[in-house]
């Protein structure tokens, strides 16, 4: 289906089902119950799942296939956000043109940075991308935020192109030539898709459960599914094969009459465009863009997501993005009171001890947990969550798979 083989089609369908049913699946605990804090089915978080999923999918096309570790991909995320914001300010609140400009601009920016950075490989490439991203951050933070309107004017460029530390925001005085500068009741209009507001949501109550369906989430989810589908196509294409060949043996590729440079650049630009798309979506969900999105820790985060989920695998980056965003939002909410209530069944002394033992890893300490998990993954599970899943599957399905392998004909099916 759609030019995919059976296995990829079922993977895609699975992801489609999961993302579409996410408001149900991520809200398994009834409202008001003690476990409700583990519910992740609220629009804000679900949007982050899919948006960072897009970011990680794109990063994986570069790092997973070619092995080139970029430490500056957040720069493209930032460019995407700023581009989308300017579309909102200048032309109107429809998200499609905003995303379009976000993708185009970040692609151009990636072409410039990639063209230079790809002249080096290995750690030098990592440091070049890092340096470029940090430069972009510094520029967005200061230079591009200086008043370009002149002293006495209060125009569009009053806070420069980026708005500096406070970020780029919408105002009532923005022109929005194809839209309205302000709504009838005098508010700043919100991003929409042909009139459907991104923040619109309806609640569905079933018993004690409350499920929220947000237009913004579903729009972002559809964009993510398209991105995911395209990434499968890229992985299965001759282009994807060339990228894996670059990772495997660049010398042989050179002496096979293929020029690695344009392949690499194309991969870099594609992954930059994915990042820009994610950045644009972030602005569409919450119309604000700040320089911190370009800081190198943001670049580090997408590296973490990709590795944690499974670098070079199709679904891994999405899983990694979900896992990290879930931890960030849910793990960080647990405090010592909640811990005490969980372990209340233990004798008092033991309860305090257990709580004290766990406490450093939750709440504000969730980064510690993340760091430890990440290290364990790099050391013991280089294939990330996906490899972990496969190992578990193999563990339980050992008898069955051995049977499969004995069946004649299986080994001779073409590798597709």
């Amino acid at each position, binding site marked *: 289906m759609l030019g995919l083989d059976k296995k990829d089609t079922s993977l895609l369908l699975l992801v489609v089902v999961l993302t579409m049913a996410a408001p149900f699946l991520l809200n398994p605990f009834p409202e008001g119950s003690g476990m409700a804090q583990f519910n992740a089915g609220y629009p804000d978080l679900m949007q982050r799942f899919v948006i960072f999923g897009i970011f990680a999918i794109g990063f994986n096309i570069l790092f997973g296939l070619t092995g080139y570790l970029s430490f500056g991909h957040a720069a493209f995320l930032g460019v995407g956000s700023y581009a989308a914001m300017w579309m909102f300010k200048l032309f109107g609140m429809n998200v499609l043109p905003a995303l379009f400009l976000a993708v185009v601009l970040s692609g151009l920016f990636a072409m410039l940075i990639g063209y230079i950075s790809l002249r080096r490989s290995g750690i030098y490439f990592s440091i070049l991308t890092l340096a470029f991203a940090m430069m972009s951050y510094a520029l967005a933070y200061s230079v591009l935020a200086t008043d370009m309107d002149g002293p006495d004017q209060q125009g569009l460029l009053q806070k420069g192109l980026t708005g500096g530390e406070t970020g780029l925001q919408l105002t009532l005085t923005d022109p929005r030539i194809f839209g309205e500068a302000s709504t009838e009741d005098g508010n700043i209009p919100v991003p929409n898709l042909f009139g459907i507001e991104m923040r619109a949501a309806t609640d569905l109550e079933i018993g004690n459960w409350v499920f929220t369906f947000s237009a913004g989430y579903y729009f972002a989810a559809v964009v993510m599914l398209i991105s995911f589908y395209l990434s499968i196509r890229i992985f299965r294409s001759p282009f994807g094969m060339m990228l894996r060949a670059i990772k495997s043996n660049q010398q042989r590729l050179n002496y096979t009459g293929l020029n690695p440079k*344009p392949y690499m650049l194309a991969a870099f630009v594609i992954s930059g465009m994915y990042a820009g798309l994610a950045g644009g979506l972030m602005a569409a969900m919450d119309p604000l863009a700040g320089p911190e999105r370009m800081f190198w820790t943001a670049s580090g985060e997408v590296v973490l997501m990709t590795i944690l989920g499974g670098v070079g695998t199709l679904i891994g980056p999405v899983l990694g993005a979900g896992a990290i965003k879930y931890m960030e939002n849910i793990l960080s909410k647990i405090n010592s009171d909640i811990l005490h209530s969980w372990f209340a069944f233990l004798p008092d002394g033991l309860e305090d001890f257990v709580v004290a033992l766990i406490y450093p890893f939750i709440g504000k300490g969730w980064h510690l947990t993340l760091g430890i998990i990440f290290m364990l993954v790099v050391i013991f599970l280089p294939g990330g969550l996906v490899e972990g899943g496969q190992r578990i599957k193999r563990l339980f399905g050992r008898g069955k798979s051995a049977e499969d392998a004995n069946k004649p004909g299986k080994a001779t099916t073409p590798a597709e």
Partner: protein
Amino acid sequence: MGILEVKGVNKRFGGLQALGDVNLSVAENSVHAIIGPNGAGKSTLLNCLVGKLIPDTGSVMFEGQSVLGRSPHEINQMGISRVFQTPEIFTDLSVLENMMIPCFAKRDGAFRMHAIESVAAEKEIIDKAMHMLDDVNMADKKDMHAGAMSRGDKRRLEIAMCLAQEPRLLLLDEPTAGMARADTNNTIDLLKRIKDERDITIAIIEHDMHVVFSLAERITVLAQGSPLVEDTPENIKGHPKVREAYLGETAVAA
């Protein structure tokens, strides 16, 4: 006029004269061996032919066109393929994928953006790759991880990959180095068959005299960066200068 004409090539590394005024002519459809003791400049010469190094002076012409200043992939697209001393294959890819890459390179050139098409739909490339694998008796290994194969298999795969591009000139850099006798003989047989079946010129750098004398039609002896003699295998065997270069002056005096 040979298919490959090397004229007056010099290459220095700092104070070391790696190649000094090398002239070499490889006749079309011949097997030409380049031998010489360690440090004679064989590998430097080879690297000058494939674009890895650029000579300080001199010219390298392939089928009447200069290769100098071109990058390795351009030179390869002109029709020169190279087999490395240690087999250079795509170890993380399957055997079939390894074989498909040169087929793509032959059909599509140095770069083509085919990011949405499916590899599985490239019937013509898969067929050609399977045919090439069949030719070296590796069709049954097509789904194997290329890095997991034996050294001899890797060598056969590498040679087959080079042939898939239908090169006019095949350069081999000590193709049997570090191989067991049986693997060496298999490789010799394979190269003989290639020579007989195809319209191809082979230039080979080799230490193993058994390999050289089984294959070569002409031999150039390189010593200290310069060609010493060039002749047929029969004449080379008894040549005093060759014995001197290989065994040292004292041996000849004794």
